[in-house]
């Protein structure tokens, strides 16, 4: 009820009050918006529209590709699948990671041993070769990319969240919830997970950055569906059409810049979350804000708030 919301609101306020997160949210938000509405505004990204390898002009803002397609349209349209796969993979990784990590950390014993073994096996599997082999083996497409990226990405999160669960499980407030009569599921969901919220959000963002990067890499190697328009296939075609040899920089720079910008925006948000969750990193502005909040009656001194 109101308590979950108030915790969420505290975080939202903190994020909106942080310059880094504001810039990051603006960048990522702009790209998400572009990926949602952009494709219906630009011309057909796969159509042959003009002479191949034309530099940027008024008619084709970002020039044309080696196949005579509009680079601007390709950049805009490519955002949709790339971001969709990236964010979905982020959700899956964090979802699987928290279920396995929290279960292992909270239940302990044999369950923990089994799940930790599984996690460690996936951690020591060499990620890149595994990705390449599985992606080549399954039919090319976004579903395959999603499966491959999730398969190779979840274990690290499971491990981090297990460690965090383990340390929270030993806290007295967990024992107190047990004494109150709460069951294990309720304790994990209502008492432990809310304490890992910042870790989970930053893990989600980290996983998304990883998913976008790895996905672009796989597609660049030709392991994606080369018929689809994504940022990865844009780069694949640029390289295939010898963009570097012919000096057609406009065929890969826009896509590359977009990938870098999204990664930069997500990383900024992650920095901000770290700052908010860890007061020692907090920049001056946030401190000033916290200190100017009038303490409730009988409250501890702000010094103690900082230590708590």
């Amino acid at each position, binding site marked *: 009820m109101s308590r979950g919301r108030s915790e969420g609101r505290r975080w939202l306020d903190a994020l909106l009050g942080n310059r880094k997160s504001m810039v990051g949210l603006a960048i990522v938000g702009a790209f998400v918006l572009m990926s949602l509405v952009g494709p219906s505004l630009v011309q057909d990204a796969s159509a042959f529209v003009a002479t191949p390898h034309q530099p940027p002009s008024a008619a084709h803002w970002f020039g044309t590709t080696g196949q005579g397609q509009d680079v601007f349209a390709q950049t805009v349209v490519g955002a949709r699948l790339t971001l969709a796969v990236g964010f979905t993979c982020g959700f899956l990784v964090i979802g699987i990671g928290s279920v396995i990590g929290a279960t292992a950390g909270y239940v302990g014993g044999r369950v923990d041993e089994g799940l930790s073994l599984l996690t460690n096996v996936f951690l020591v599997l060499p990620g890149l070769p595994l990705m390449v082999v599985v992606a080549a083996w399954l039919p090319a497409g976004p579903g395959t990319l999603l499966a491959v990226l999730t398969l190779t990405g979840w274990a690290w999160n499971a491990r981090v969240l297990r460690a965090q669960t383990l340390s929270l499980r030993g806290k007295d*407030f967990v024992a107190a919830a047990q004494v109150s*009569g709460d069951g294990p599921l309720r304790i994990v969901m209502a008492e432990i997970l809310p*304490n890992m*919220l910042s870790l989970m959000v930053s893990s989600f963002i980290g996983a998304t950055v990883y998913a976008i990067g790895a996905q672009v890499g796989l597609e660049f190697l030709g392991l994606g569906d080369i018929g689809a328009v994504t940022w990865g296939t844009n780069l694949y075609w640029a390289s295939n059409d010898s963009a570097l040899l012919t000096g057609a920089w406009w065929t890969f720079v826009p896509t590359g810049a977009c990938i870098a910008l999204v990664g930069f925006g997500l990383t900024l948000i992650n920095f901000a979350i770290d700052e908010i969750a860890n007061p020692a990193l907090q920049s001056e502005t946030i401190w000033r804000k916290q200190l100017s909040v009038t303490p409730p*009656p*009988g409250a501890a001194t702000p010094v103690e708030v900082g230590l708590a």
Partner: protein
Amino acid sequence: MNAAATPLLELRDVSTSFRVGGFFTPRLLKATQEVSFTLDRGEIVGVVGESGSGKSTIARLISRLVPTTGGAMLLDGDDVLVSEPRRASLAYRRRVQMIFQDPFGSLNPVHTVAHHIERPLLLHGKATKENARSAALELLDDVGLRPAEDFIDQHPHSLSGGQRQRVAIARALAPEPDIILADEPTSMLDVSIRMDVLRLLDDLRHKRGLAILFITHDLAAAKHLADRIVVMYAGRMMEEAPADQLVKEPAHPYSQLLMAAVPRRGGSLHDPLPADPGTPPLVDPRPGCPFAARCRQTVAACTTTTPPVIQLGPGHRVACHLHTARTQ
């Protein structure tokens, strides 16, 4: 009191071991061994002992946070270790509540005071969603957090230690329990507010007829608050006696050492005691009395056999060969 009546809670030779050591060298740490005592309605039983003597373990095994490895635990004559062996039933949870030592750790930092108190109210059917808030306000008022409206929406970090401990007490009271296990409820609080919290516990005992297990290393507090005192050493019960009697005429050499070493007022077992070679090993304990190494009055049996618990007088029991010899 009717001696034949079933006590509210009775521990009979309850033991708890923890598995310690590596995977290939598992060993058992015997945190409590054969602890027996009773707790009745409206009664406060104090448990005193040095650090590591197993006091918290007793509270945790009664609250079923740690499993027992032997003995019987009877609530109203029903052995709960038999009737609900794996985990405590909700009915048991309702009746047995606990207050933790550290009020900074026992409240969840992400939740408000309201959450902490409304949750047990709802869980045990003591309130509905509609009146949970007013019931919580009433409880806060009962534990002296007034005006309750000012506290109910706070997060723990904006409360002082004493205020947090009162919230923890309100949470424990929410299910209307019969028993409260208070594990050093004042040791982390400022000296100036300890007395207030102790007075609150005493009030609750009188007003609600609660049975309280009061664990402390503060002998003066135990004497002040408790009706009976159990003295623990290295996981074993050394002596149990009515509070006055234990203070005036301690029978066990360890109790005598405690009483002699502690100044009359505000004494604490955290101050070093004379002739302390450290706690005897709890892993592979030596045979005999655990206190033998520190005792000045040992007899031959002390290092070979564990002294049985014998009755010295009404409500006065001791585990010591000196008394075993005398009564036989």
